Structures are given as C-alpha cells and as structure tokens.
C-alpha cells in the first residue's frame, strides 16, 4: 500500500509538472474557466433601414454559441440562438452575447437600426467645421448613412467646439423626434455629446426653445462605441436651430484631463410619421 501511495504521488507530480521540453515547472497555469470570451463580431450592411439590412455575428473559436435578443435585454442561453444571417427590416436594437462551456461568457455587443429620416430641404452648419475631420462636409450629417467605429471612414464630422446648424423644412411638418448619432472612442479623445440646445420656429422668424433634458452618464473608463441620442420633439415645425456641445473638460481619469474632448457625429435623423 505504501509503495502504491508513493507511486501515485510520482504520477501526480510528473503529470502536473512536466512540459514538452522536459523541464520541471512548478507554476500553475491560467485556467480556461478564468478567461472571458471576447465580444462577438457583428457585421451589418447599413444601420439606417430603407428596405432591409443583413446582420452577421461570429466569434472565431471552436464550440462558441452566440445568442441574441431584440428587446434590449441581455441574452442568455435561453434567448434566440444565432444560426444564420439575420435580415432586419424594421428599426430595433439587436444584442448579442457569446457563450462557451469552458470560458466566461462575453460582454454584450449591440447594434441599433434606425428608420430612414425625412430628406431635409435646407441644412446649414453655421459654426465652423474642423479642417482635420470634415467628413464629406455638412451634408455628412443628413446623407442617410451611418459611420463605422473607424472615425476616419468619411462618415464622421469631428469638432472640438460646439456645432450649430439651422434646418429649414420649407413647409410646416410635424416632427416626432430627432436621433443624433455620435461616436465614443476615448483612446482617441473622442467623448460623447455634452449638451443639446434646440429651438424651433413655426413662422421661420421667431424661435422658441425646447427642453431636451438629455444627460448622458459620465464615462469612468476607456470606451469605444456607437452612441445615439434620441430626442422627442412632437411639434409642428418649419425651421429649427440645433446646437450640440462637445465635452468641455475631459475627466480626471483620462490622460487628456481638463482638455476639451473631440465630438464626432455621423447622422442626424429627423423622424416624422411618414418616413
């Protein structure tokens, strides 16, 4: 019995401590169950839906399963399983999460789809655009195209000062809401919208302010994401003035603390009943 126990320890020691090179290793290695999956990769045709868009989700690791929801909730293994390309024809929010029996599940990855806004008759940015990131000029904001996470993809306008625009719809319209797309990439000093000021005019001459009450949660760590600010309007409007301010002072935790942040926007979507 004693000999068996000694043999048992010999096997145990050998099996746990010898690597390919035959050297003795006393360290314990990182365990699979201690490691989290990366976020699934989501590819979409376009996020503004004219007719439909395709969504492909993947994570290139064997035996990974991806689940998703369309109600904004966090996916679980009981949610719908991603099996093939999803065709999206209505606005909505798709949230994906990857699972694997050996690893910690991933964080969620969300992609939002918007309905196409109305065509704007006359759109004029009256503040100056930054020469470094002009996008495709002021029309970038109303060209019905969203930008990617790459802030240099030509779909983003970047500014370090407030941006002010006047929109003339020519005719009176009932504007239900406004979606303002923005980018967050704190590593590149790109921060969310700080404040939005909107005023509107029924006669094209006199303007009244609209209370927007949009307060975004302050970031506390490096973040990269596509953001959207949805503002309810619900008013008869002919003309409107929109002022959006960048982060005036980058928070303390960031290497650029106290400096102004960049503000990147890709699209302003004007929603009416008819679009």
């Amino acid at each position, binding site marked *: 019995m004693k000999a068996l126990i000694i043999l*048992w320890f010999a*096997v*145990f020691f*050998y099996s*746990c401590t010898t*690597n390919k090179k035959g050297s003795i290793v006393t360290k314990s*290695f990182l365990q699979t169950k201690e490691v*989290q999956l990366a976020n699934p990769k989501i590819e979409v045709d376009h996020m503004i839906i004219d007719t439909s868009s395709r969504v492909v989700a993947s994570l*290139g690791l064997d035996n990974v399963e991806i689940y998703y929801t369309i109600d904004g909730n966090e996916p679980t293994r009981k949610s719908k399983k991603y099996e093939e390309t999803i065709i999206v024809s209505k606005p909505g929010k798709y949230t994906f999460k990857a699972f694997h029996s050996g690893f910690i599940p991933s964080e969620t990855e969300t992609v939002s789809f918007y309905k196409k806004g109305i065509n704007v008759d006359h759109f004029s940015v009256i503040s100056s655009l930054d020469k470094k990131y002009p996008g495709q000029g002021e029309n970038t904001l109303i060209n019905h195209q969203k930008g990617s996470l790459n802030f240099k993809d030509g779909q983003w306008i970047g500014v370090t000062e407030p941006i002010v625009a006047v929109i003339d719809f020519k005719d009176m319209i009932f504007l239900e809401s406004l979606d303002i797309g923005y980018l967050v990439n704190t590593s590149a000093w790109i921060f969310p919208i700080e404040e939005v000021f909107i005023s509107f005019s029924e006669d094209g001459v006199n303007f009244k302010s609209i209370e927007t009450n949009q307060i975004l949660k302050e970031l506390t760590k490096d973040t990269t994401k596509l953001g959207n600010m949805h503002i309810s309007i619900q008013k008869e409007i002919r003309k409107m003035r929109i002022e959006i301010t960048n982060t005036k002072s980058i928070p303390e935790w960031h290497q650029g603390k106290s400096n102004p942040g960049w503000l990147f926007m890709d699209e302003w979507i004007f929603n009416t009943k008819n679009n």
Partner: protein
Amino acid sequence: MNRRNFLHKSACISAGILTLPMYSGAYAFDTRKDLIIGHNSHRYKVDMNWGNLHSNKVPVKDCHEIIQDSKGRIVLLTNHVKNNIIIYDKSGKLLDTWGTTYPGAHGLTLSVENGEEFLFITDYDRHQVIKTTIDGREVMTLDCPADTGKYKNKEEFKPTETTVLENGDFYVADGYGNQFILHYNHKGELLNIFGGRGTGESQFLNAHGICFDQRDKENPVLLITAREQNTLKRFSLEGDFLSSMEVPGALICRPVIHGNEIYFAVLKSKEATHDDSGFLLIMNEKNEVISCPGATKPIYKDSQLTELYQTIKLFQHPHDVCVDEDDNIYVAQWNSGQTYPIKLTRI
C-alpha cells in the same frame, strides 16, 4: 477504502504509469483545464504569475519592449523612471534594475560588439536614441537628424525602434514622428534616410518596428511594420522597397525573429468594439501566419489572409515579445494597468 474503490484506484494508477509521458497535462483529477492558446505547431500555456514584482519597490508603467541578453537574462524596458530597465532571470526572479532618465522609453534592442553587449533605447519623449552598456552607462546619444531637412523642429522626431547589423550599422524607425527610416554607421553618422509618412508602397503610417532579417544569408533585408496599415514591409538594406505582407485586422508592433520564424505582439484588433483587444501573431519561414495566440485561427482564402481578431480576453495591449531558447514567449504590454510581463510556455 472498500475493495471496489481500491481496485479502481489501483487501475488508474497503473494506467497512469503505463502512459506516463503522454499523460502530462491531461490528468483529470479535478475540473482544472489549463488554457491553451495558439494554433497548429505553436501552442502555449499561460503563466500570469511570471515576473510579478512588488509594485511599490519595482514599479512599471507601460512595458514597451523586452529582450533576452547573451546570458539568457530577460531585460524589460518600461517608461517608469524609477527603474526603466528591469532584469529578470528566466524563472522570473528579479536580478537588477537601472535607468531613471527615460520617460519615453519605447524601443529596446540588443547589440553585441566584439563580445560586449550594448542596448539601443529609443525615447520618444526625449526625442533621442540612446546607446548604453548592458549595465546602463550611456555611450552614445542621437538627436533629431535636423540636417536632413525633413524635420521642422527636434520635437517631430519620435523614434520607436532600432535594429543593428553585424557590422555595427544601425537603423532607426521614427514611428511616432515623421515616419522616416534612418540608416547610421556604427559611429552614429547618418548614411541614408528613406520612407516617410504616406500611403505609398515605400511609405508608412506608424513605422513602429524594424528588424534585420538575415534568415536568408544571401539576401539580408529589413522588415518594417506599418502598424496602422496592418502591414509588414520588406526593404533592402539600401532602403529600396521590396514587398509587403498584409495582416488584416492586426496592429503589429515590431517583428522579432526567432529561428526561421517571426513573432509579433499585436496591439489591438482593428475592428474590435471593446478595448484591450490585442493578441500575438507568428509567421513561418515563408512569412505566412501560422498561429495567433489569443485570436482567430489564421486562414488563407485564395492566398489572402482573412481578418484576424481577438477571441478571448487574455491580452490587453501586447506591445512586444521575446522568445527564449525553449521557444517560450515573454509578452510586454502597453497601457494594461501597470502589469508585468506574461510568460507563455510552448507545449
């Protein structure tokens, strides 16, 4: 212990003895499962404890580069000015530290000249290249090559890497500056300048790393990374562009040659939506990607490498790798919460 249990355990022990060599790492006494990363012939287990030190006594900030010296010691460069250089033995035990004057310490290259070891340090904050003895005595400093007319002021020179030839000539990559590659002789006299910022085939966006590649002894070349472009470029020693290899999705730092292979730290996955999306990349003697520890398996379709991206959150921002004689890898990381290097043990 009843007889049935005894027999069962005896049988297990016998099986263990009989299969002793192949049993290594597969013995299922409990639910432990060592993480194995990488693909094909290059797979590794991960040791997160290697080289961890007391952060008050020997602190690190960004761990930018890591090399092995002729004695087999592992030499780490950090931009923490309490101890810019940290020297370990291979087990991860601290041997020595030095250096307090390199706030932008970024590139670290070993040069052996007549049996004596030197280090080339690039410091983008000091806008200098500094050559030291292995124990930290400065023997040469190079400033911005203003005479070339390529720089408006010395601050535009932000060197990231060096590589040294056998004759003592060396090249400097100005990867955070104006993207030129500078060729000097062993005295520090400028012989040539090429590259520069741009998207042309002989230009760079983020000429981050450079190395002397003499795997083909008859045709030695320079390998230079254009990190932002996810591309490795080959140049002649005279500065003529030869060819380029794209590694879609991978922000490759510097090429590190070990045997017939090239190893890279990949700072991040290009399209990742989350931070800390780095991984490692290994090319074979034909410069084909064969393994990506921490990322997708490399797949070629119609001779084109498909996009690579991180699959598990193991590495944060890997910035350099060092490969020892047992093929184990030591990984230094930038902007990763002041963490010490990670060791990967080849299996």
